[in-house]
């Protein structure tokens, strides 16, 4: 009732995959509207970041996700929140799916204490342990072995014979040739860990195209004997079905899988990169016209008479307002208290869950150092 079947216009590319990938997805109006709303929220959030960055309200590094929305959305649609997720610094939209809100993400970017990381992380460092989201990691590639550790912990905690929650580590084509990724993959395979290595291939590592950085740019094959699959990362349904299959494979004791999402970032690598010196505007424009992940969902809704264009326009209008309202609310945030500066360095106390402080924390002006050099260890302050 109300469900539609959407054939994929492109096949999954596979590498040593011992099972068949689907050729279509079944979905319905509710699902598609849900994806559309979240992806459009991501888009507006990132575009607003661009504006606020240029207005100098956002500092430091800022890496935007517009163009790649279908990847995160497809992953979340296939997962539940028991599955762990870790990604690189391009993390705003993952945060939105895993515990963050548009307002708390903006607040973080503005450096306010209402931010997802209380203003201590910024653009690259957003987390929510409650939602099994582990960042928001700033060092290219380092999140991948850490992600393998998340899958290790998932397996460790699951009784033998039961399905394990999985872990996913996302990284870009630019990171894909890092040695530590293979180190993690090797252990994931040896120890049959429920681990998804997810390459978000957005075609450029900063400004270096995959052809100039990778001797093998079929990233889904880089696991050697580990099965791999490549899919259209601009198609949320294809990502969802691909991730469902990957999750099923990993969670039933078969070990890891490589999943490559062929995607595109509309913005430059970060805000300091206009994104036009190593690629041309025509390429970006043709990507927007032919493969935009949000337009794809909108077209599905309209073509299958699940929504009319006016309805979608109204939703877009509402979301634009919601994002603007969230920005306005975030801007009313408060500057972190001075004490935040030296909070959260150590944890301890009786049940090991209280923030504790070193007895002596040196400050630039020694006379203003916190605590006393005549005290010892760490303690509650």
């Amino acid at each position, binding site marked *: 009732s109300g469900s539609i079947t959407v054939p994929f216009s492109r096949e999954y590319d596979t590498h040593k995959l011992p099972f068949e990938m689907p050729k279509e997805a079944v979905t319905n109006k509710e699902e598609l509207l849900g994806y559309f709303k979240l992806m459009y929220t991501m888009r507006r959030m990132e575009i607003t970041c661009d504006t606020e960055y240029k207005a100098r309200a956002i500092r430091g590094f800022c890496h935007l996700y517009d163009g790649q929305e279908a990847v995160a959305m497809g992953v979340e649609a296939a997962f539940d929140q028991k599955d762990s997720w870790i990604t690189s610094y391009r993390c705003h939209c993952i945060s939105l799916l895993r515990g963050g809100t548009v307002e708390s993400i903006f607040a973080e970017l503005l450096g306010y204490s209402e931010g997802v990381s209380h203003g201590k992380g910024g653009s690259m460092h957003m987390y929510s342990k409650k939602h099994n989201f582990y960042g928001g990691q700033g060092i290219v590639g*380092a999140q991948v072995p850490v992600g393998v*550790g998340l899958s290790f*912990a998932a397996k460790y*905690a699951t009784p033998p014979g039961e399905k394990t929650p999985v872990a996913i580590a996302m990284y870009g084509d630019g990171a894909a040739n890092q040695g*530590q990724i293979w*180190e993690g993959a090797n*252990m994931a395979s040896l120890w049959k860990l429920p681990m998804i290595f997810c390459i978000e291939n957005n075609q450029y590592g900063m400004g270096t195209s995959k052809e100039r950085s990778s001797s093998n740019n079929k990233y889904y094959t880089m696991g050697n004997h580990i099965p791999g699959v490549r899919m259209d990362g601009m198609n949320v349904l294809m990502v969802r079905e691909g991730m469902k299959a990957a999750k099923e494979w990993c969670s039933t004791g078969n070990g890891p899988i490589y999943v490559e999402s062929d995607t595109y970032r509309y913005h430059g690598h970060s805000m300091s990169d206009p994104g036009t010196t190593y690629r041309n505007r025509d390429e970006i424009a043709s990507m927007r016209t032919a493969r935009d992940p949000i337009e794809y969902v909108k077209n599905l809704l309209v073509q299958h008479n699940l929504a009319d264009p006016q309805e979608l326009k109204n939703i877009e209008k509402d979301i634009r307002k919601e994002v603007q309202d969230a920005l306005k609310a975030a801007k009313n945030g408060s500057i972190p208290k001075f004490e935040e500066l030296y*909070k*959260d360095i150590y944890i301890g106390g009786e049940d*090991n869950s209280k923030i504790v402080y070193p007895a002596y924390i040196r400050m630039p002006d020694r006379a203003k150092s916190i605590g006393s050099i005549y005290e010892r260890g760490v303690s509650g302050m």
Partner: protein
Amino acid sequence: IDMPVREAINQGLDEEMERNENVFLLGEEVAQYQGAYKVTKGLYQKYGEKRVLDTPITEMGFTGLAVGAAYKDLRPVVEFMTFNFSMQAIDQVINSAAKQLYMTAGDIPVPIVFRGPNGSAAGVAAQHSQCFAAWYSSVPGLKVVSPWSSEDAKGLIKSAIRDPNPVVVLENEMLYGVSFPMSDEAQGKDFLVPIGQAKVEKEGTDITLVAHSRAVGHCMAAAEQLAKEGIKAEVINLRTIRPMDYATVIASVKKTNRLVTVEEGWPQNGIGADISANIVEEAFDYLDAPIERVTAADVPMPYSKPLEEAAVPQVPDILAAVKRALYREK
């Protein structure tokens, strides 16, 4: 009873694994081979392959893996076969472990232990002989301990495993086979050495010797010789490098008015340099002589034995420094 340091660490690991099933060990040769230095002997047989894991020789990967497991509440104990190899993984130790609690505003603690032999070994040349105390102890978010005796070794590894923060445990290969007395209390399962507290190993009134790890033994030997000359040296075993117990050092200097620091690490930006700066700031008026630092020579470690001996502090080096600080000799 007397017990070698190796066995004391092994006992500490065993007791903590028994106490908490989320504690697991991983590293190169820790399981079937029973440890390159036999520190993990018998633990694979007792706890099985789920909790004692031989890793490939890929430090960056297995350290990252352990950090991720700690994000999800497991308590990994990572063995570096020696700390020299931890350099391959130092990004994971510092960026992924030490800074995580802060960046997440307290949301994600990282209860992990990095342990293994540190400092100069014997006859293994430059790449396998280096002290990392200064490196790791400069990082907020890490705790760093460095045991000397068997009681230190057992009590500190147990405290490190129970600590909810990342703790670096800098052991010393040359001490693994050395036996030290273990008190009845230290043989018990509840014995802990608190992180952040130095221990006065020997009381004295004339001069303070501060050291960690193997250099504590050299200081004790020096103090014995000095006693024969009527010089009462106080020997402080730092036990913890971060958070440093400056209070104990300052109190001692206020009593003795003279300070010699001893370490097997390089001089520049070393532990002695840090202590010296803090003593000058906090207790300058109590000093009757310039602080003396005894450190490794400012060179990579050579292979040949006479050269190696010349590169690391020996008891006569300490005695010479003490005499200068006491104005007994130039």
